[in-house]
């Protein structure tokens, strides 16, 4: 927690670094890739609040990603509502599901919790496939308009990039704030030792429920942004496999650090750009990366960066 407080400028740096001119010019393709990266940063960071801070295993985070995406997609494509309204509706729905499912499910222990979140993910995806008349089923939902604010459409990826990353910035900032707040501290207590936490008056169910809803809201926003960028949605993008991909980003970056998962998302989403001829190796690589991280570098990339920084510059005094 001390780390986070002192290094928020890293975040600002990262954003400046991503400013298009420094990347040698922006193209629609590049913006597209970076939009993808941004969306997954939101997903990874939101999962970190749940898993890293509160210690609640979720193998089904893509469920809320899906709800946000399809809410935005359906409302804008089929009913012509404004994207902002659709985004808010998606958040409402995601938050509602998280609230309803949260109470009973979050009380479960580890394996049971993992399976329950997996089940929820599958339920959402199979519902999407089954309710063909609404969602387009397995063939997908088409003709989703671009995101627009106050009538101004962001159909140019270069412009949309700014919208997405502005939101990414807000989400990461908010998540950092939550992590180092008294609320975040309470989650850490629950994560460390739920029984002991109770003896200090902490209503664990309540706090778990709150953070679950928050992470669901963020994931929903990511989903909405995704829908408007792609213009087209397929249920395959929201399966348990996607949830697992987010998990890999989480651990690769360094679980619990907020920055780490953001880094992990950036790394894993940019890597294919440089290695696309090895696309078939992606699955194997993900597995191996995760294994290596778990066994040899549990603090992830962020942990390694911090150790390097400590060794080069030395830890700052309090």
């Amino acid at each position, binding site marked *: 927690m001390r780390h986070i407080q002192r290094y928020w400028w890293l975040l600002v740096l990262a954003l400046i670094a991503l400013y298009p001119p420094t990347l040698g010019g922006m193209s629609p393709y590049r913006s597209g890739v970076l939009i993808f990266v941004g969306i997954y940063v939101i997903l990874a960071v939101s999962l970190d609040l749940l898993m890293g801070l509160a210690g609640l295993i979720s193998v089904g985070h893509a469920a809320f990603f899906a709800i946000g995406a399809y809410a935005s997609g359906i409302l804008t494509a089929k009913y012509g509502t404004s994207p902002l309204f659709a985004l808010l509706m998606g958040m409402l729905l995601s938050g509602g599901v998280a609230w309803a499912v949260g109470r009973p499910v979050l009380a479960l222990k580890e394996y049971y919790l993992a399976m329950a979140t997996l089940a929820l993910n599958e339920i959402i995806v199979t519902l999407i496939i089954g309710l063909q008349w609404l969602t387009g089923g397995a063939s997908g939902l088409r003709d989703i308009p671009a995101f627009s604010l106050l009538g101004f459409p962001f159909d140019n990826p270069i412009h949309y990039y700014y919208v997405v990353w502005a939101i990414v910035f807000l989400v990461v900032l908010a998540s950092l704030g939550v992590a180092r707040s008294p609320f975040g501290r309470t989650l850490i207590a629950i994560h460390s030792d739920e029984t002991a936490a109770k003896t200090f008056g902490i209503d664990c169910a309540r706090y778990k429920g709150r953070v679950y809803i928050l992470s669901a809201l963020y994931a929903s926003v990511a989903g909405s942004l995704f829908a408007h960028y792609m213009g087209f949605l397929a249920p395959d993008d929201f399966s348990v496999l996607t949830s697992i991909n987010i998990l*890999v980003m989480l651990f690769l970056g360094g679980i619990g650090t907020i920055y780490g998962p953001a880094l992990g998302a950036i790394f894993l989403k940019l890597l294919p750009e440089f290695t696309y001829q090895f696309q078939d190796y992606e699955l194997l690589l993900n597995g191996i990366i995760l294994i290596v991280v*778990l066994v040899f570098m549990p603090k992830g990339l962020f942990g390694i960066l911090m150790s390097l920084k400590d060794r080069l510059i030395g830890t700052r005094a309090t």
Partner: protein
Amino acid sequence: MNEFSHLIQFFFSGLTTGSVYALMAVSLVIVYKVSLLICFAQGEFFVIGALTMVTLTSKGLPMPAAFVLSIILSTAVGALVERVLIRRIRDMSVGNLIVMTIAISLALRGLALLIWGKESAVSPPFTPGKPIHVLGATLQPQVLWIIGVTILVLFLIWFFFEKTKAGIAMRACAENRLGASLMGISTQKVALFAWAWGSGIGALAGMVVAPLLFIQYGSGVMPMVKGFIAMSIGGLESIAGAVITGFLLGLVESYTIGLISSQFSDTIVFTILLFVLVFKPSGLFGASRSREV
């Protein structure tokens, strides 16, 4: 008569998938009882076993040889995974263990993708033969193999765990790790054995159903998940529970697809899982553990 024969048809397909689910569930239970680990990678042995057999038979090997070799290979892979990876991470938090087995499943699936590519493979049936007609429903002879092998495996498991020294040692280890090690039982060997059993049975499930399905690198995920569901509902540590629930699950699924809706059968199955997890997490056959402080 048509209605009735449909019901019989559903029964047979339910029995078929039920066998697969039962085998997967049993393999998961065995590993869990001994290592207290739920292996997310189990589905990959399903695929490895099936695809290895397909490859071997396509190269001209006779079916029995291919069968045996595939089992040996899958079991070897399972043992290797235990020896190299699982043993090392035994002390990790439960959350990390879960993620570890997920990672292993990713790696194995990625490996399968590289070796066999994205195409689906169909295996020749164990014995050639025409479909059998029973009470108006059609039965592939392979189904008899599936059920037969399942019963054989269950018998072997029973025999091994009840009658052989090694099996009893494993059970002792599952009940009381410390006590077992104090009695000279090598807990490490037992864990290895458990994983070998688990991967072997998982592979068997894949191999036995391969002639009826198109199997590709990702085909293991669903059987594993359904195996989980059976295991969760049947009780995490109960082999009998796993078997019964596995078959029940297959039948429920089959009748749901046939009679209610094929589109929402999975939704229904997973919703049932969610309800069971919330209301009776130790499963229908499992004992409720008293709360630890």
